[in-house]
């Protein structure tokens, strides 16, 4: 098929009318009736302490309080890849804000007042926040029982330490590689924590009916995974997947923060204590910062050796990831990022260590980019610095080392088909990388920078998803699936895929939001894998329905199935140009025969797919063997920026990104994603600056002081570019790009800042303050790391 009717077309989002009219319902918009109860959480004021006692008696006396729940009511662990957290703290708390107890009351005001009356006695313990401190021998141990925690086979926890997982990658001989090098650059980079800042805070409502069945409504990326993890945790109370149902309406942003399970399990657990009453837990904005997931803090020590001709001979790096006190999901960020921490380059000698370290900051986990934004900041800063040292263009240096199809990855498997070099060239051309520009204002300087990117979906090797499709009397279609619309445009693209196969326009296709009782299984909407994997499942469902359509027409009208095709919502025949049968005439009611009987069936289709070629079985000492990643999406980003040399303020004049999406299924929604993700990348580079005090308390968990970009903070011009090197196993050749667009932005900005004013910022964020101070004091390098608190004083 050369020409598509709906694929590759700028189809309008099918959910947009719901969203501009207020018809779109999010969890908090659902009416749960007069029996609804509200929960308020009692939180730890200490980053690390023993819980000596909890007295709930005063809280229980407050009129309107229905129940007060503490950790002793739910002594159950949970977690996605490692079971290291509890529904409520048990004998100790490990971060400020951790849930210790909950008050369930008839109204939120009463719950809030009563929660203040729960008396908790603590014995403070020494806390540790700096990951480098946490791995010292005398560091306080945050999980003394680490060695006993159940975990997936590709995690390597070091019991008796704060190292929750240590991923090692070894290839070739790094010592030999460095010996061959003409030039070696070694440096340290620091990336602080960041918050997702979905506009909708986390919310979950749990309800156990009088028959004991649990229903959860949640703002979630992961209805099936949440159902499963909650069933696992609540098994001792008799819950199984069969008697748990999760319903997810529209979701007000995810960015990874609503994957796995965090606070949803609290609502589920509380509901089990008040049968017949729905219980709502809605996070305030400050709770959203400290009690879901954050992005991890990373300290990277990176050493790269090169020949004069620009070939990289060796790479050695150690990344120290501060993952907070619960790493059940976050350790997989470390795992995935370390396996790919070379960046998209073919390097013969590699030694990489990724340490996932427990600290007493809030828990960190998945965030758009899944560790790749962090590893690529150091790599791409290094690449430009080395290119300059060699007197080469940053473009040429990247192209010399850029990974090509079939080249060996750090863990041995071959690289997939990709358009990396094309992306680098297109971005460098778009910003005229090699042409120096002068600002008209003598107080300002203009700089340019580029960065490459890659990212693979991080998933277990047996990830699966599925879709149902059904026709209605008017020839319209409902598709049932459990991929989440979190803003990325999933519903529209899935409709386009079915539309292309069945010749039914996307506006006649509804894609239903998940209800685990009715919509078929999908692991989670994460990893930018849904276009690729769920797209294949929807394609299979549509092909299944088409087969049934042709079968009905064949049985009723004797046309050979091989001669039938669909066009404009009609069945047509290659051998009979006069024949056309509208789908709506028979997809429900069938086709009447001469004798008055009918041939037909209500047309439905199902499609399902599992990744059957991935494997996480790798040598723990080298990571060789196995096939942990299904494929990579590659690309590049570039910026032209202007810096006020007096204030250090950065203004981005132009931002270009080129992503190899395989096939641009919908160029308009892709463009929207690219721009939005790029601005989120700018946010981490220039604006968002989380401050934490020496006791581990976040000082700015709000939008007044944690500055996410407004409409006044965006670049003057965006240049979105889509490269299309088809993914052989993608639907219509497509692969994912949702997270990727964020990744190159921060290092491209760092490179452009140095180009403009000669200051290399090695510790994000690259604030105006840092640039201005560096210029004032004549510093060429900035590694100040404002977020790292000073060590807690002895009590």
């Amino acid at each position: 098929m050369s020409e598509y009717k709906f694929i590759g077309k700028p189809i309008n989002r099918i959910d947009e009318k719901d969203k501009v009219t207020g018809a779109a319902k999010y969890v908090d918009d659902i009416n749960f009736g007069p029996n609804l109860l509200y929960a308020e959480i009692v939180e730890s004021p200490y980053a690390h302490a023993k819980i000596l006692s909890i007295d709930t008696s005063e809280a229980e006396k407050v009129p309107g309080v229905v129940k007060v729940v503490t950790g002793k009511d739910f002594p159950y662990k949970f977690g996605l890849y490692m079971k290291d957290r509890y529904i409520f703290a048990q004998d100790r708390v490990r971060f400020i804000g951790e849930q210790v107890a909950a008050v369930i009351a008839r109204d939120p005001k009463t719950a809030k007042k009563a929660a203040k009356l729960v008396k908790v006695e603590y014995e403070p313990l020494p806390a540790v926040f700096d990951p480098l401190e946490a791995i010292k021998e005398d560091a306080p141990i945050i999980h003394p029982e680490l060695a006993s925690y159940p975990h997936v086979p590709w995690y390597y926890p070091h019991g008796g330490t704060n190292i929750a997982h240590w991923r090692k990658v070894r290839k070739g001989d790094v010592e030999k590689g460095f010996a061959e090098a003409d030039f070696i650059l070694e440096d340290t980079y620091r990336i602080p924590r960041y918050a997702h800042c979905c506009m909708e805070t986390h919310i979950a409502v749990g309800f156990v009916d009088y028959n004991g069945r649990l229903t959860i409504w949640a703002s979630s990326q992961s209805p099936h995974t949440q159902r499963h993890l909650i069933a696992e945790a609540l098994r001792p109370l008799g819950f199984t997947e069969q008697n748990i149902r999760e319903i997810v309406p529209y979701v007000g942003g995810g960015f990874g923060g609503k994957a796995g399970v965090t606070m949803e399990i609290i609502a589920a657990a509380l509901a089990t204590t008040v049968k017949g009453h729905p219980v709502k837990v809605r996070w305030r904005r400050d709770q959203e910062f400290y009690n879901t997931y954050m992005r991890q803090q990373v300290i990277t020590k990176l050493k790269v050796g090169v020949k004069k001709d620009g070939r990289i001979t060796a790479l050695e790096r150690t990344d120290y990831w501060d993952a907070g006190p619960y790493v059940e999901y976050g350790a997989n960020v470390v795992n995935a990022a370390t396996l790919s921490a070379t960046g998209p380059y073919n390097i013969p000698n590699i030694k990489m260590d990724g340490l996932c370290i427990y600290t007493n900051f809030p828990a960190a986990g998945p965030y758009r980019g899944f560790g790749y934004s962090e590893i690529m900041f150091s790599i791409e800063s290094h690449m430009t610095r080395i290119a300059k040292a060699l007197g080469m263009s940053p473009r040429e240096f990247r192209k010399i080392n850029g990974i090509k199809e079939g080249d060996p990855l750090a863990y041995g498997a071959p690289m997939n088909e990709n358009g990396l070099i094309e992306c680098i060239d297109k971005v460098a051309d778009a910003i005229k990388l090699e042409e120096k520009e002068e600002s008209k204002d003598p107080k300002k300087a203009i700089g340019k920078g580029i960065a490459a990117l890659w990212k693979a979906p991080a998933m277990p090797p047996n990830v699966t998803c599925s879709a149902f499709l059904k026709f209605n009397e008017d020839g319209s279609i409902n598709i049932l699936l459990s991929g989440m619309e979190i803003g990325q445009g999933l519903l529209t693209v899935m409709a386009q895929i079915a539309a292309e196969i069945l010749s039914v326009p996307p506006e006649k296709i509804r894609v239903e939001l998940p209800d685990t009782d009715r919509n078929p299984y999908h692991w989670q909407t994460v990893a930018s894998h849904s276009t690729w994997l769920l797209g294949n499942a929807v394609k299979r469902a549509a092909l299944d329905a088409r087969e049934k359509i042709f079968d009905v027409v064949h049985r009723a009208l004797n046309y050979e199935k091989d001669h039938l095709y669909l066009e404009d919502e009609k069945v047509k025949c290659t051998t009979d140009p006069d024949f056309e049968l509208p789908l709506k005439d028979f997809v429900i009611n069938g086709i009447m025969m001469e004798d008055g009987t009918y041939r037909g069936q209500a047309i439905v289709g199902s499609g399902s797919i599992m990744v059957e070629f991935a494997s996480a079985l790798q040598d723990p000492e080298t990571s060789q063997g196995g096939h942990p990643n299904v494929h990579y999406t590659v690309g590049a980003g570039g910026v032209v920026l202007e810096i006020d040399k007096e204030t250090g303020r950065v203004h981005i004049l132009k931002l270009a990104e080129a992503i190899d999406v395989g096939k641009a299924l919908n160029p308009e929604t892709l463009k929207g994603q690219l721009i939005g993700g790029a601005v989120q990348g700018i946010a981490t580079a220039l604006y968002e600056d989380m401050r934490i005090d020496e006791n581990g308390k976040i000082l700015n968990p709000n939008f007044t002081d944690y500055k996410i970009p407004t409409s006044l903070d965006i670049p003057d011009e965006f240049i979105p570019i889509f490269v299309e090197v088809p993914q052989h196993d993608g639907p219509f050749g497509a692969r994912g790009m949702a997270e990727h667009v964020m990744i190159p932005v921060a290092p491209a900005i760092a490179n452009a800042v140095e180009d403009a004013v000669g200051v290399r910022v090695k510790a994000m964020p690259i604030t105006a303050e840092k640039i201005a101070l560096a210029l004032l004091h004549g510093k060429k390098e900035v590694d100040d790391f404002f977020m790292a608190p000073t060590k807690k004083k002895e009590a």
Partner: protein
Amino acid sequence: MGQSSYRRIKMEKKTITFILNGEKRTIEVEPNDILLEVLRTKLGITAPKYGCGRGDCGTCTVLLDGKSVRSCLILAVEVDGHEITTLEGLSKDKLTPLQESFIEHNSFQCGFCAPGMIMTATELLKKNPHPTEEEVKEAISGNLCRCTGYVSIIEAILDASKKY
């Protein structure tokens, strides 16, 4: 903390009457009830959303006598005798040209900021039917959006302004 700090302050409930999306509504509220929560839990108006509870994000934006306000920062008793318009009140018969333009530009992704953003933009075009790009950016700068990078929203408002 402790028992002495807890006192159930008896608060006199107050009856308020105001125009909500063109209809006269009378309800009883407590003096410290927040307008956003009263709209959402007592009046079935769910388009204005809770995003921050302190006036930073703009997802709860409604029009009070035609002027955009943060409903999370307004007490319900303050709107007694006034007029409130929410997104639900904009398109009872048909979509406004602004709403049509947002659809055409695929302006919203997760959609959570849309109800507030649309009210702010509606106010802007009423006061200034032909704004410049800078004026649009300035007007919506108090409505945060994490998904779109604002470009598709700005373009839709500018495009809609050509129809006024």
